[in-house]
């Protein structure tokens, strides 16, 4: 019984961390059709911002939930103004440009922080469930993922801002004709996407040893999740994160961690063969 509980917690945690890893990319890629290959580096910078802020004496939750997203969001804003805005609608060019950006950020962070592994410890202690010890931080990650999805849904579906953003993504000319500047909407959206990437990196930072090249570990999973999710932002994110998190954890427990990763990739390949438009290309059509 205890074991079942522990496995469920680990599964929810896996799903939640996929949601976090992919949310920023889902906004930038899903809404703006910009392939941001520097997504992993935005996360990595979120981690470094958190660690720096904590060593400078900031409260760790403040650092993770406020400072890191704002700082990384601002970096994203600069990137959007200088690079991305010239490349809207040019898929391959944005790939090349953002790949260059990712190399640039790795180099920059290496110059500032050096190439050694850094990190901070988790702020929440573990606790006991029957015969098992569980990482208390897992619950924090699950909580953040739920709140994040809730907020995204509320903003996109419930506010005028969300409506404008969605409208501008679908028909920029029409939005412009109605008096909204697509350029500014794109800018704001990219800011939000970058901030979410920074948030994800910040929240995962206490669980990992951070090096400037850490971003590479996230990028593949993030893309797989977003692409398998399909056109609907939130429904797609939930569907594919849930599916992949579940499958990888089942195989990790039953066989080995390597098989867990393999199962995730096999599931992604099969899924995209059956549903080339992603899960929400077929089901939950028209949802946010």
């Amino acid at each position, binding site marked *: 019984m205890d*074991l079942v509980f*522990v*496995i469920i917690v*680990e599964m929810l*945690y*896996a799903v939640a*961390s996929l949601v976090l890893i992919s949310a920023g990319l889902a906004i930038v890629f899903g809404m703006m059709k910009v392939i941001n290959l520097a997504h992993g580096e935005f996360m990595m910078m979120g981690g470094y911002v958190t660690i720096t802020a904590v060593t400078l004496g900031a409260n760790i939750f403040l650092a993770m939930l406020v400072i890191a997203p704002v700082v990384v969001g601002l970096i994203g804003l600069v990137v959007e103004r200088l690079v991305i805005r010239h490349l809207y609608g040019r898929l391959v060019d944005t790939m090349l440009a953002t790949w260059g950006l990712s190399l640039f950020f790795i180099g920059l962070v290496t110059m500032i922080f*050096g*190439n*050694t*592994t*850094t*990190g*901070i*410890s*988790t702020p*929440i*202690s*573990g*606790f*006991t469930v029957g*015969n*098992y*010890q*569980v*990482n*208390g*931080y*897992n619950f924090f990650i699950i909580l953040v993922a739920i709140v994040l999805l809730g907020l995204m849904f509320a903003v996109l579906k419930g506010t005028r801002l969300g409506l404008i953003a969605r409208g501008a993504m679908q028909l920029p000319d029409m939005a412009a004709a109605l008096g909204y500047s697509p350029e500014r909407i794109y800018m704001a959206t990219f800011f939000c996407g970058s901030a979410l990437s920074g948030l994800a990196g910040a929240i995962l930072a*206490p*669980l*990992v*040893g*951070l*090096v400037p*090249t*850490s971003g*590479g*570990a996230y990028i593949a999973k993030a893309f797989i999740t977003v692409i398998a999710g399909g056109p609907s932002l939130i429904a797609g994110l939930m569907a594919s994160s849930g599916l992949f998190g579940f499958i990888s*954890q089942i195989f*990790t*427990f039953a066989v*080995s*961690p*390597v098989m*867990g*990763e393999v199962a995730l990739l096999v599931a992604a390949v099969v899924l995209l063969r059956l549903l080339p438009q992603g899960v929400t290309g077929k089901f939950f059509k028209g949802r946010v």
Partner: protein
Amino acid sequence: MSINRRHFLASAAAATGALMLPRAVMAADTIKLGSVLDVSGIFDAYGKPMDMALRLAVSQINADGGLLGKQVEVVGYDTQSDMALYSQYAQQLVRQDKVDVVHGGILSASREAIRQTLHKNKTLYFYNVLYEGGVCDRNIFINGVTPAQQAEALVPYAMGKSGKKVYIVAADYNYGQITARWLQKFVADNGGETVGVDFFPLDVSDFGSTIAKIQTAGPDLVIAPLVGGAHLSFFRQWAAAGMKDRIALASTTLGVGNEHKVLTAEEGNGIMVAYNYSQELETPENKAFKKAWVAAGGDAGGMHELAVSNYHGVLTWAEGVRLAGSLERDAIIDALETGISITGPGGKVTVDPKTHHAVLDVHLMEFENQGMRVVETLPQRQPIDTQAVCDLVANPDDNTQYEIQI
């Protein structure tokens, strides 16, 4: 006078030639020590202190009057954590710089990239890094600890402090695989039982489910030959789950690149390791080394296992040259094969004539407040794994890396 392209090229070539001239003249009466290390790139945490240690050893040798009445000159190349550059620079050291000896290489892949070049060109090679064991080649000398040297010491100690049931979590490449086999052997030899073995690709950084799985198996001890930044997460998540006070933890890799300074004291305290070097060793050699290191401009806490191995390697080579009284490769090999020893910061290091590996002190240690407290020193451990397959006295022409069957 106008500058055109041809004129510019001609004068540039002349200037370069003039610059090179004094060096070439000077080089005739120095001994050239070639070094290839990753001083930048993802492995620079290992390579930078190694380079520092090598230069420190050479400057100390030169301050004492050099070798055979000549000064030693370092010809160093930065391989930038790029395996392709190793073979290129090895060729350059051999053909162009005509060095007398090469020290260097960090990953096993980098060693194998240059070993054959140096073997073919009869240039003596020192590989000064802890590695998976089994290299058998008369042209190479290796002074890092091998898995058996470590595991033979670590396993009985760690089991004695915890219990008989052991779980192994290892990195999924040759080092981790081979080390895991040795660990299993020594667990069995000491009357214990291995209740589980898991391997992780180098980029896995999420160990939550593994930690739950380990608890289902209920071991007394977890041994972790994990490698690199992503795997550091295991130790962090282990502590975050509150496992530290429930199941004992040992590692064969943690601390080699000073990882114990990255983990907080709460995360690290009590983890058991076994290496040739700790900054906390209270020997006169280590105190002198640490002083010289800081005096040479090094970071006070920056020296680690691999840096000290590199330092030992240069001292061993110098001792061989002194004994041989010559720079001839075969004379130096013969001198080293008499089983000479040096005493460095990590203790006494003796060349094993049969394998060209090192007989050295292994220190059992526990992490304590971001340091490695030495619990016990096991003097002069033999490289038994490589000894089982390699005998260069009987087969001097051997040139293989054996996979050791256990």
